[in-house]
């Protein structure tokens, strides 16, 4: 992952904001504005407790850029650390499993979603535009699919497995 300039913490957008339902445009990963966005995504993710990924749509921009960092999460198996991908797409997905997801942009609900636990993703790194292919599994695979969905204008609400699969968020003392 190339070094990024310092990022700014951005406001996280909540549903039903239109931008969250808007498919992102392809970006030039070497464009300074895209590099700044990449840094902002990581900066915003880092100050958000429990946040393991953030997409451009969640900070109000319909672009194909997202950040991920599942290192330190108890469910993580394979881990590629802290990174940003541009124009990412799923190359292959297998071993589907069902899990309950929450999202900073949908704070009042959680949902049961089927997602692949084995995944290959292709995308470009910011700054250099280098094309990379990541092979991963488990929690990182789920997180990548959640973020790629955001860049395509999809929320977990669009993916839930049945009519009873959206739940009011359970609050903890």
């Amino acid at each position, binding site marked *: 992952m190339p070094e990024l300039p310092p990022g700014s913490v951005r406001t996280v957008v909540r549903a039903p904001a239109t931008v969250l339902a808007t498919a992102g445009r392809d970006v030039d990963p070497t464009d300074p504005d895209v590099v700044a966005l990449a840094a902002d995504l990581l900066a915003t993710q880092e100050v958000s407790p429990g946040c393991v990924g953030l997409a451009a749509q969640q900070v109000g921009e319909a672009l194909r850029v997202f950040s991920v960092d599942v290192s330190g999460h108890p469910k993580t198996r394979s881990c590629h650390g802290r990174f940003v991908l541009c124009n990412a797409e799923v190359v292959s997905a297998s071993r589907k499993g069902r*899990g309950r*997801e929450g999202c900073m942009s949908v704070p009042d609900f*959680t949902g049961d979603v089927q997602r692949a636990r084995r995944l290959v993703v292709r995308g470009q790194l910011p700054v250099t535009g280098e094309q990379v292919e990541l092979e991963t599994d488990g929690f990182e695979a789920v997180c990548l699919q959640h973020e790629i969905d955001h860049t395509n204008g999809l929320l977990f609400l669009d993916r839930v497995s049945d009519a009873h699969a959206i739940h009011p968020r359970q609050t903890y003392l």
Partner: protein
Amino acid sequence: MLAVTVIGADRPGIVAEVTGALAAVEGNLEDSTMTLLRGQFAMVVLVRTGSPVAEVEQALARVSSQGGLAVDVRPVSAASPAAGAVQGSSYVVHVNGADRPGIVATITGVLARRGVNVVDLGTRLAGELYVLTAEVVVPLDVDVDELRAELDEAAGVVGVHVRLVAVETDEM
């Protein structure tokens, strides 16, 4: 806030007719559940409207008489979604076994004695097989191992198998 419950022999168009009648009296549908139970379609809908209850009842009376539906409308307090909720952790209760009277009462009796709140529950009967699935909130001060042991014991009495499985939410 009004609670509207509707039940009737299933056919295409029930939801459209009932919600159309509610829209005509400026009713805004909030939380609802609608499901098919052995040929009977059941709806429970919370509706917010400025129209008087009598007007809503009148609008739905036409639907119920023409559509063969049993309809009930009653005011309920407009509590926030979290009001009255038990604070705790989510679990799913899975029960299956040979059908007999008292399964649901026995299992939920154990839950009630422990202050466990049922937030969603469905049952299905197919032949002799009875299946219950529920989502529950277990208060933080309840010992889950003890709860499991009590559920196992109660399940044994009514001849079913029970599992209590924690629901984990992955924050993205």
